[in-house]
C-alpha cells in the first residue's frame, strides 16, 4: 500500500467525517426554520388532522355585532379582524349607544387569531357576559350576549 494511497484514504476519511457533521448541522438548521404553521400549510401538505378542525371555525365565525335590546336596538356593525369595534356613548364609537349607564368609551370587541374578545375599557358600570362582570379580555362566541348598561349586544353571522 503506497504512501500516497494512505494519505488519500486519510484525507477522504476526514472529509466524510466533516460531511457528516455539517449535514447534521444542516438538518438542525432546516428543523429550526422548516417547521410550518398549520394555517399556511394547507396548500403544501394535505394533513388529515386539519379536517376536523375546520368545521367549528366555519360554523362559529361571526360577521357582525348587533344591538338586540335597549335604546338602539337594531344597530349593527361589521366585524373585521384588524379593526376593533369601540362601543360607548362617545362620537368616535363604532356602535354609539344612547344609554345613560354607558361610559363614553365603554368596551371594545377585537379579534385575536380566529377568536373574538370583548374587553372592558375601565367603564363605570362594567361590562357583563351573562351575569358575570368581566375584568379581563374574554372570549365570546356566536350568540354570546354582552350587556353594557341597559343594552345587550350579540355576535351574529
Amino acid at each position, binding site marked *: 500500500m503506497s504512501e500516497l494511497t494512505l494519505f488519500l484514504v486519510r484525507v477522504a476519511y476526514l472529509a466524510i467525517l466533516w460531511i457528516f457533521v455539517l449535514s*447534521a448541522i444542516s438538518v438542525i438548521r432546516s428543523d429550526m426554520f422548516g417547521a410550518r404553521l398549520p394555517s399556511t400549510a394547507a396548500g403544501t401538505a394535505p394533513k388529515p388532522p386539519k379536517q376536523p378542525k375546520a368545521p367549528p371555525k366555519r360554523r362559529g365565525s361571526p360577521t357582525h355585532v348587533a344591538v338586540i335590546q335597549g335604546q338602539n336596538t337594531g344597530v349593527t356593525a361589521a366585524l373585521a379582524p384588524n379593526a376593533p369595534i369601540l362601543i360607548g356613548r362617545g362620537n368616535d364609537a363604532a356602535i354609539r349607544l344612547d344609554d345613560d349607564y354607558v361610559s363614553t368609551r365603554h368596551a371594545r370587541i377585537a379579534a385575536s387569531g380566529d377568536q373574538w374578545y370583548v374587553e372592558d375599557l375601565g367603564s363605570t358600570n362594567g361590562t357583563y357576559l351573562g351575569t358575570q362582570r368581566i375584568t379581563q379580555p374574554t372570549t365570546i362566541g356566536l350568540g354570546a350576549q354582552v350587556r353594557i348598561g341597559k343594552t345587550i349586544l350579540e355576535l351574529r353571522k
Partner: protein
Amino acid sequence: MANALLLQFVHRRRRGAELFLLILALVVGIGAYAAVGLGVDGEVPTNLLGYGGWLAALVIAAHVVVRLVAPYADPVLLPIVAALNGIGLAMIHRIDLALDQGQADQQLIWMTIGVMLFVATLVFLRDHRLLARFTYTSGLAALVLLMLPMLPVIGNEVNGARIWIAIGPLGFQPGEIAKVLLVITFAGYFVVHRDALALAGRRVLFVDFPRGRDLGPILVMWGVSLSILILQKDLGSSLLFFGLFLIMLYVATERPGWLVVGGALFFGGAAVAFRLFAHVQQRVDIWLDPFADRNGDGYQLVQSLYGFAWGGLIGRGLGEGMPGRVPEAESDFIMAAIGEELGLTAVIALLLLYGLIVERALRAALISRDGFGKLVATGLAGVFALQVFVVIGGVTRLIPLTGLTTPFLSYGGSSLVANWVIIALLLRISDQARRPLPEATDESEDPDLFQTQVVKAVGR
C-alpha cells in the same frame, strides 16, 4: 401574538432526514474500520461485510423502532450517537491490533446490549412522565447501586478505585446506571418542590436559602451518594454528581446565587480533598508538570500529549500511529489515540458532535411542555456535557485528570449501555415535546366546549 404563533409552531417528523444521516453515520463508522485495516495490514479487513452488516443491522433496528414508537423524536441524536459509537469501535479495534487483544468484539456485544436497552426503553416507556412516580424508588436504587462495589464478594478494585462489581466474568460499573437514576430523582423532587425551594426561606448575604424541610431530603440523598463516591476514590464521578446537582438546582429554582454557593463549595471541597488524599495531590502534580516524572507518574499523560503532538492537524492516518504507547488508550485516553491517528481535524469534529448532542438535549428541554421532562432533559444534557468536559479536559491537560469514560467512544460496557439509555430518554422527551397538540374534537354545539384543552393523560 408571538405566543400564539409559538403555539401553532408544528414540528415535522424528519424521519427521512434521520435515515439519511444514519447512512452517513454508518459510512463514517464502517469507513473507519476499513481504513484501520488498510493502514495496518494494507488490505480491507476480511470480516468487513460481517462487521458492517452487524453495525448496520443494529442502527437500522434502532431507527425502525424510533419510527414506530417515537415518530416525532429529534432526528439528529441517533445518527450522531451511531457515528460516535462506530468511530469508537474502529479505534478500539485499532488499539486491539496494536496490543494484540480482542476488546472490540466485546465492545460490539456491549453495543448490542445497549441498542437492545435503547429499544426497550422506547417501547416500554411511552411517556417519560411515568418516571416521575419513581422519584424516591430510583433514588434508593441509585444509592444501592453505588454501594454495591463496597460489598465484599462482588465488589472489585481496579486501579485504586473501588467502583466495579463482578457478575461472573463480566465487570460492571454500577455508578453509570446510578447517574441516570439520580437525574430522575433530582428532576422528580425539584419539579414538585421548586416553588417552595425558590420562594420560601431566608436570605443570607445575596443567596436565598430554602427551608431545611424543602431542601433537606434531597440534600441528604446527594450527600450520601457523594460520600460513597469519595470513599471509593472515584474522583470523576464525584465531580459529575456534584455538578449535576448544582445544574439541576439552578435550573429548577432559577437562582443564580446557587452557582456562587456551588462554586465556593467546589473549591472548598477540592482544597480539603487536596490536603486529605494523596491521590488527589498526585493528580494535581501530574497536571501541573507531567514531565517532572515522565517515565513514572506522568507517563500516561505525557504519552497522550506526545500522541496529540505527533498527530498534528490531520493525523498520522488510521493504523499509522502508535496509540498502544498510552496506557488505557482504549478507555479513558481514547481521545489521545484519535488525536494521534486522525489529528485535530477529527478531534474538533468529535467535540462538535458532543456539542450537538448537548444542544439537542437542551432544545428538547426548552420545548418540552412539562416541568419534569424539562428537568430530566436538562440533567441528562448536564451529565453529558460535564462528562465530556472532565475527561477530554483531563486528557488534553486542561484540567487535572479524573477517570471517566468518553461517552460512546471509550471501551466500557456499563458506560456505553447507560449512554444508550440516556439517548433513549432524550428521544422520548423530544418526541413528546415535538408532537403536535392533540386536536380538540368537539361534536356538541355548546360553545363553552370550544375552549377546553384536551390534556393527554398519563397511561396506567
